[in-house]
């Protein structure tokens, strides 16, 4: 009898995930969204607060109903890797990490290729807005931890918004804040099949889609935009879509970014008022 190892039961069955009885899968219908309170063109309410992490030079926490992420900014600090050649401009490095519990399927501890690429994209989205030329030979590090993700597109756009607020809170000189927003195209009516040419509804643009809606999306777009300088710092579109829908969704996202800009403005003024009362 092997006493060292406790043998498991011969027959083991995967745990049954019981969905609540009234769990009705959302199917895309015209003008109706997964959470019925929202119209297709409006965003989820954003809760944004600075000063979450004491240690960091600047930090921000953002919540869009079920998407929650925290961002810490450290710097400007000396460039650690000596191998770098002399650089007259500051070096911005961003790192996005999904907490292992943040998605339906557990993500592993190591950064997988998707997180590496999202970090690269975030660096490209933020760097046009930061005055890196005033910080020679130094580096700014932005760390984002996604606590709960309800839709990857909305999660990434929230990361852009939170990072830019954290940078402003850290007192780093910036040309403008960067607002991020995402949208998905979902085929609600019968798809227009080219062969039969049957007239039908083109895919509809759902702003800030959540996890459930993303499963039915035909394509998605994420836009990072500097509202007052009127400049797009990053655009990421995937999936098949007509040219007309793309330009329509770019306009929608630009309007949404202006709204988000107001929330960021308010959050930063909030932190100014707080400092006033402490002085």
């Amino acid at each position: 009898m092997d006493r060292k190892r406790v043998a498991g039961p011969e027959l083991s069955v995967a745990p049954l995930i019981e969905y609540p009885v009234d769990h009705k899968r959302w199917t895309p219908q015209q003008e109706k969204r997964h959470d019925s309170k929202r119209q297709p063109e409006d965003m989820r309410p954003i809760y944004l607060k600075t000063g979450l992490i004491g240690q960091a030079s600047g930090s921000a926490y953002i919540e869009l109903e079920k998407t929650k992420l925290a961002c810490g900014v450290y710097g400007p600090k000396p460039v650690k890797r000596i191998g770098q050649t002399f650089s007259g401009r500051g070096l911005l490095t961003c790192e996005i990490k999904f907490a292992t519990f943040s998605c339906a399927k557990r993500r592993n501890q190591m950064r997988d290729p998707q997180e590496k690429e999202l970090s690269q994209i975030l660096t490209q989205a933020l760097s046009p807005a930061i005055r890196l030329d005033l910080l020679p030979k130094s580096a700014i590090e932005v760390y984002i931890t996604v606590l709960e993700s309800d839709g990857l597109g909305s999660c990434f756009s929230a990361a852009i918004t939170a990072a830019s607020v954290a940078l402003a809170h850290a007192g780093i000189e910036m040309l403008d804040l960067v607002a991020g927003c995402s949208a998905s195209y979902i085929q609600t009516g019968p798809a227009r099949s080219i062969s039969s040419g049957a007239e039908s509804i083109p895919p509809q643009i759902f702003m800030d889609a959540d996890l459930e809606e993303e499963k039915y999306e035909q394509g998605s777009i994420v836009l990072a935009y500097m509202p007052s300088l009127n400049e797009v710092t990053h655009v990421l579109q995937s999936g098949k879509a007509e040219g007309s829908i793309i330009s329509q969704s770019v306009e929608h996202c630009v309007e949404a970014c202006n709204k988000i800009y107001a929330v960021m403005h308010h959050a930063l003024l909030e932190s100014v008022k707080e400092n006033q009362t402490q002085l």
Partner: protein
Amino acid sequence: MTSVADAVVPGQRLGHVQEYIAGAGTYALQDFLYASVVGLKQISRTSDNELPTMTVQRENSQSAIPEIEAIVTCKVVRVNPRFASVNIMVVDGKPCKDDFQGIIRVQDVRATEKDKVKIYNSFRPGDIVRAQVISLGDARSYYLSTAANELGVIFGTSVAGGSLVPISWQEMQCTKTKVIELRKCAKPMQ
């Protein structure tokens, strides 16, 4: 207390380039003035004929980085015949979160008789030195100089462990054992 009304956010338009001059915390782009930091908008009128300058007094100061001509306070880490390498801790009175690397070359220690300088008679590891940044240097460290009178060692510990007090521009005395050690001292600020 200035009202929160004129607190500004980066990217906020402050005015026309013709009306104001861009001060600290602001920048000018295509005939408009924008704020570049979070803070309170201040308009300071220097002399009457010029335009007033617009500055934004920043909320929490960004941790400082050494700039050219900045007065820095640093701690001597290593000394060798050609230069003393130091950790820059404070820049223009503002502490920086992580220490920057700097070196004081032997020819930048003092202004007179540059070639006769003995580095071990100027700095010892552990001294606190006030210096001025003369160049961004190379990828690794900034170049500093202690040539001016008010630059040099401001605090040091003697061999016996007592703290050193400057008695001349190149001698310091240990408070405990009264032994005189040679340093390039800073003229005490009045």
